[in-house]
């Protein structure tokens, strides 16, 4: 009955036992990526926990600030170095605002990893196209790390990143390293502001338009391609429809959804989307499994 999710055979999961059990992490460093968005470099205090922790690209952790609250945040670091966890967070609410006030050296609690990963393992030999809208790239950075290391196993790897404005483009200082690893990286920002000229922003000489424009131009987009997409729901639907029109199978288009979440283990009910729990059935879903529900407003 459950929509099949194309996951590799072995997915790291949070240790059995109390799903509310969390571990202390210390902030080792903070990088201001773009205005209002920071990447937190976190390490477990407990050596044994650090040694036992594994995650796969696309999974998320629950970051808990005692007394403030908890938030589900994608893991944005390299899964090859799982003891060193990066989370890229936009300050948009209670928990993320409080996180933004923390300094290196301070501690918080973490539990995870949760959810299923991007389906990379069983898609070697294919053209991998990652499409990210805004902060959606944070959920793909771990996959990009892995694809960059294992680039030769895939026919091609392309990263398409769209943002409202140039200042919204994430990880731009890493583009060169990704390109040197053999990844194709293209970015685009939304159309010019109302009353503005042709340029979306002063000083921007890159592409202006929607991320689907980049997708349309992609010659490798065909039945050999797997599309991994993360962004706002309408953007992901548009990406999926474009990809299908270009011959990509609906089963080979994967979307990472975001919903309200309190437990991350199918108990709190908050993340329901039609018949699925985004936390554990997802957050990565084949478009084919959720298409009919994405088409319904306010579901």
């Amino acid at each position, binding site marked *: *009955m459950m929509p099949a999710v194309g996951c590799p055979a072995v997915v790291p999961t949070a240790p059995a036992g109390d799903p509310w*059990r969390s571990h202390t992490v210390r902030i080792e460093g903070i990088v201001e990526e773009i205005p209002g968005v920071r990447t937190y470099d976190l390490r477990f205090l407990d050596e044994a926990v650090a040694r036992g922790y594994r995650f796969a690209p696309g999974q998320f952790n629950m970051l808990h600030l005692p007394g403030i609250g908890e938030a589900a945040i994608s893991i944005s670091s390299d899964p090859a170095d799982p003891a060193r966890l990066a989370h890229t967070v936009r300050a948009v609410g209670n928990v993320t605002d409080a996180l933004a006030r923390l300094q290196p050296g*301070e501690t918080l609690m973490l539990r995870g990893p949760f959810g299923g990963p991007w389906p990379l393992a069983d898609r070697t030999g294919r053209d991998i196209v990652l499409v990210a809208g805004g902060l959606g790239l944070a959920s793909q950075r771990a996959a990009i790390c892995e694809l960059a290391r294992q680039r030769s196993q895939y026919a091609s790897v392309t990263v398409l990143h769209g943002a409202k404005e140039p200042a919204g483009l994430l990880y731009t200082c890493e583009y060169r390293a990704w390109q040197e690893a053999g990844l194709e990286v293209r970015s685009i920002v939304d159309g010019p502001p109302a009353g503005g000229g042709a340029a979306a922003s002063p000083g921007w000489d890159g592409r202006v338009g929607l991320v689907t424009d980049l997708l349309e131009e992609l010659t490798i987009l065909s039945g050999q391609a797997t599309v991994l997409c993360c962004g706002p729901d309408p953007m992901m639907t548009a990406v999926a429809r474009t990809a299908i029109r270009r011959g990509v199978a609906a089963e080979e288009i994967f979307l990472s959804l975001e*919903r309200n979440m309190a437990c991350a283990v199918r108990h*709190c009910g*908050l993340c329901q989307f*039609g018949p699925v729990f985004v936390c554990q059935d997802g957050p990565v879903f084949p478009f084919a499994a959720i298409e009919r529900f994405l088409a319904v407003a306010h579901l």
Partner: protein
Amino acid sequence: MQRENHPAGPGRCQVDGSPQAAVGDWVWLNVADLQLLIDALRHDGRRVVGPQVADAAVVYRDLERAADLPRGWIDEQDGGHYRLRRDEAAGVFDHVVGPHSLKNFLFPARETIGRFLREDGTWRQLDDLPPEPPLAVIGVRACDLAGLAIQDRVFLGGESVDPGYRRRRESLFLVAVNCRRAAATCFCHSTGCGPAVSAGFDLALTERDGRFACEVGSERGAAVLATVSAATSLLACSHDEVSAARGQPAALEQAMHARQEEAGQPKPRSLNTEGIRDLLFDNLEHPRWEEVASRCLSCTNCTLVCPTCFCSSVGEVADLSGDAVERERHWASCFTLDHARMHGTSVRSSTASRYRQWLTHKLAGWIDQFGTSGCTGCGRCITWCPVGIDITEEVAAIRDTAGQKESPA
């Protein structure tokens, strides 16, 4: 919890040296024996809860005296209507179901799920949570047992197990009761959840002529009965008496199927569950959602009284220093904007979208998620809805006009 169909012979369970009642046996309990039963359960260190009249309803409360059970009370229920009425002929358990269910105890409305301490600037989670005594509940109906089995699937049946629920569930002692009457709002006969109690209990009572035929459902039930029989001799039920006791809920079930609408009487409910998952998921944009939203107050009552609704959110309770924090899980409801809040707005901003979430989850999504419907047919959501919205009527309306489409605002 294995049951066998071999009623004990007459006299088998008397205290004078003969064998004690075993799983599958039936013995007679007198009304006076209910106090011995409560005492036996309490003697073992259990907290005992049972139905009592309070605030003009029959609710589950801590029970010490059998005299506090709602003997002689009948509940009249209809959409948005619940009244208790004295009926001197009524037995101890002739009310049906009140606003409470086992959920109130197994999955309490508020629960501490973790404690955190900050020392020298470093947070850590503490190991200890407050202990709770094991619980015994008297008066549980077939629909309550069905609701419990559904919540078991939610909290125990998946990859992750809820530790608090498991602790309470494992030590739970259940004294079930076979209903002798059905409210107009009851439709357990059409969901396959009742009215007969069939499994999942420690002891089950069938009230007959002022006494109770008591079926032993578990070793724990047998042990508690052994304590009772140390204080009074318990007569085994005869074969004929067991057959008659079994026939009682079976007759009620037949009567529920035969119920007809009568002028001046509340409409008897039933739910056609055939193909219900696809029916609802194929009609997510049916105009009925807007129509019901024009009546729904989004008050959350239906989710509070529902024995299976399990949504929750977590709050932080800090002391004045901010260095000692408890995380408290509390019930949430899909009828609130907070339930689907994301980036400062709610995904389900309209009442239509929230009612649709509740009903489609209960009757359709649940089947995908847990392999069972989320509805037991207890009728609480109908009774306790302040405007009398009726889940069976809403499903019937969609079934009658399936395929109509109108996007909710």
